[in-house]
């Protein structure tokens, strides 16, 4: 290990934050860029499955809450792109990677939202799993990312409660509403568990990320925590988790549960989810159709600054 690398690791071990202009190993920078931009892309693509129900939200109040949520998510995307930019990559480069398929976004957004209960389930399960992943990131070694996470986690836990509230209202409603909720749980349960990624045994990245304090818990630890938190909530809602192996294990003080269908997981990652083509297509189209808009703003800014220069030259 080179001396500067050793010094870097010692600072991390001492719990110090790394800041943008400081020296860092290329692998650290690359890992962070990959992870933060993937996270940012997920926020942006994540607007689509929820946006799908804004125009059909069942009350004005629910519509307002969903609009606010989607707005927050776009805001999270913004912080995260900014955090990634401190590592020397531009937002346009990151978009380019998303649009070309080089960069990923969370696979969960390749599932369709098929009923209003899905909006609740996304808040409860998907945001719930995201928070589980993100809470430790508030203590991540990279300063800008850790600070972005503080703000994001606060809003996400608000979203999670709102999602749960949608479902809590629906299960007290008509039989059709309750069936919608159960159906949403049936469809979103396993994909949510898969959000933590495969077992760490399978991952080479994980050990290094742990050492760098980019990652602080194993995928399996977080998944266990998620199940332990979520299973009783499902119970409270009067729902059945679609896992026959789920049961309380008093000895380990947590739930035993079944293995997700990783074949499906890798299929969706590979682009074969029901919505992959539509999600990426929508983002590409938004970008391409918006080229004239962005060019217009740039041209105006140039004109305006030329005019200011002219004016100040004339004034001298």
């Amino acid at each position, binding site marked *: 290990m080179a001396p500067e690398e050793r010094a870097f690791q010692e600072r991390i071990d001492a719990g110090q934050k790394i800041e943008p202009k400081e020296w860092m190993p290329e692998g650290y920078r690359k890992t962070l860029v990959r992870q933060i931009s993937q996270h940012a892309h997920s926020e*942006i*693509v994540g*607007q*689509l499955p*929820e*946006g799908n129900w*804004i*125009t*059909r*939200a*069942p*009350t*004005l*109040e*629910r*519509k*307002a809450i969903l*609009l*606010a949520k*989607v*707005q927050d998510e*776009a*805001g999270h*995307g*913004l912080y995260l*792109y900014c955090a990634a930019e401190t590592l020397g990559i531009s937002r346009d480069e990151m978009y380019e990677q998303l649009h070309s398929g080089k960069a990923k976004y969370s696979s969960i957004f390749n599932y369709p939202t098929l009923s*209003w209960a899905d909006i609740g389930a996304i808040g409860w399960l998907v945001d719930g799993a995201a928070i589980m992943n993100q809470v430790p990131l508030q203590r991540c070694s990279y300063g800008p990312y850790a600070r972005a996470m503080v703000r994001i986690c606060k809003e996400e836990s608000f979203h999670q409660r709102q999602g749960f509230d*949608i479902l809590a*209202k*629906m299960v007290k*409603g*008509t039989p*059709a*509403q309750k069936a919608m909720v159960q159906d949403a749980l049936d469809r979103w349960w396993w994909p949510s568990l898969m959000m933590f990624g495969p077992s760490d045994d399978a991952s080479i990245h994980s050990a290094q990320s742990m050492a760098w304090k980019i990652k602080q818990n194993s995928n399996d630890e977080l998944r266990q925590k998620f199940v332990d938190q979520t299973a009783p909530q499902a119970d409270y809602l009067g729902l059945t988790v679609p896992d026959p192996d789920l049961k309380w294990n008093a000895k380990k003080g947590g739930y035993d549960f079944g293995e997700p269908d990783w074949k499906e997981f890798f299929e969706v990652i590979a682009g074969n989810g029901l919505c992959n083509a539509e999600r990426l297509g*929508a*983002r590409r*189209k*938004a*970008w391409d*159709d*918006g*080229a*004239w*808009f*962005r*060019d*217009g*703003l*740039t*041209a*105006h*800014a140039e*004109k305006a600054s030329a005019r200011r220069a002219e004016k100040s030259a004339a004034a001298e």
Partner: protein
Amino acid sequence: MTTAIIGEAAVDRAALFEFLLRTGDNALILAHRLSEWCGHAPALEEDIALANTALDLIGQTQLWLGLAGEVEGGGRSADDLAYLRDAREFRNLLLTERPNGDYGKTMMRQFLFDAWHYVILNALRASSDVRIAEIAEKASKEVSYHLERSRDLVIRLGDGTAESHARMQEALDDLWPYTGEMFVGETSDEALAAAGVAPEPQSLKAEWDALVAEALSVATLKRPADGHMHKGGKRGIHTEQLGYILAELQFLQRAYPGATW
């Protein structure tokens, strides 16, 4: 017809109800159109701004339609009015239901509406009906920000590239015939104006004209001539667009009658 005693003024309840529906329906339908952009805007900042504007408008819808239901006195909530009326009972301006088109057209529609919205809300802050004055007070703060934004974008895109200029001019020309309706008074407006509840629509035109002319001039866009103007929204005669908007907007309430959400 019954009359409602508001402060000092006695105004026709049906006229007041109509007026509140119009104001609420404008906000609801425009918010719907803006929501259609979610995740599809040309820049992330625009996604955020659109969601924010739509959110403000939905908040205003709740207040205006809530008050409308109260004035009507038949026990209808804001949600009932938003979700359980068919197209002929909607009172929004035709402008608000125009399809989004490209982002420039959406912004031009927004600017033309915001300028009017800003002027009318300012006037309503002095309404003799304190409930209206209070809602207008809150809403006008939000709308003054909407106007600042849409004016700014119209200017930047109008005075941007040749292409952005051409798109904005086309948007303006297409939408212009839908602006006249904002200033058309129905008979019910006279009574409301006399009672100091709401301004006569035509009284807002000079200020709107000035706001629009200033921005268009900075944007290097040509104000179209005032030719034929479409109208009908205030009497529930809409374009064919509204039916599709409502089919989507009202689906859950219609498909699951009586359910609470």
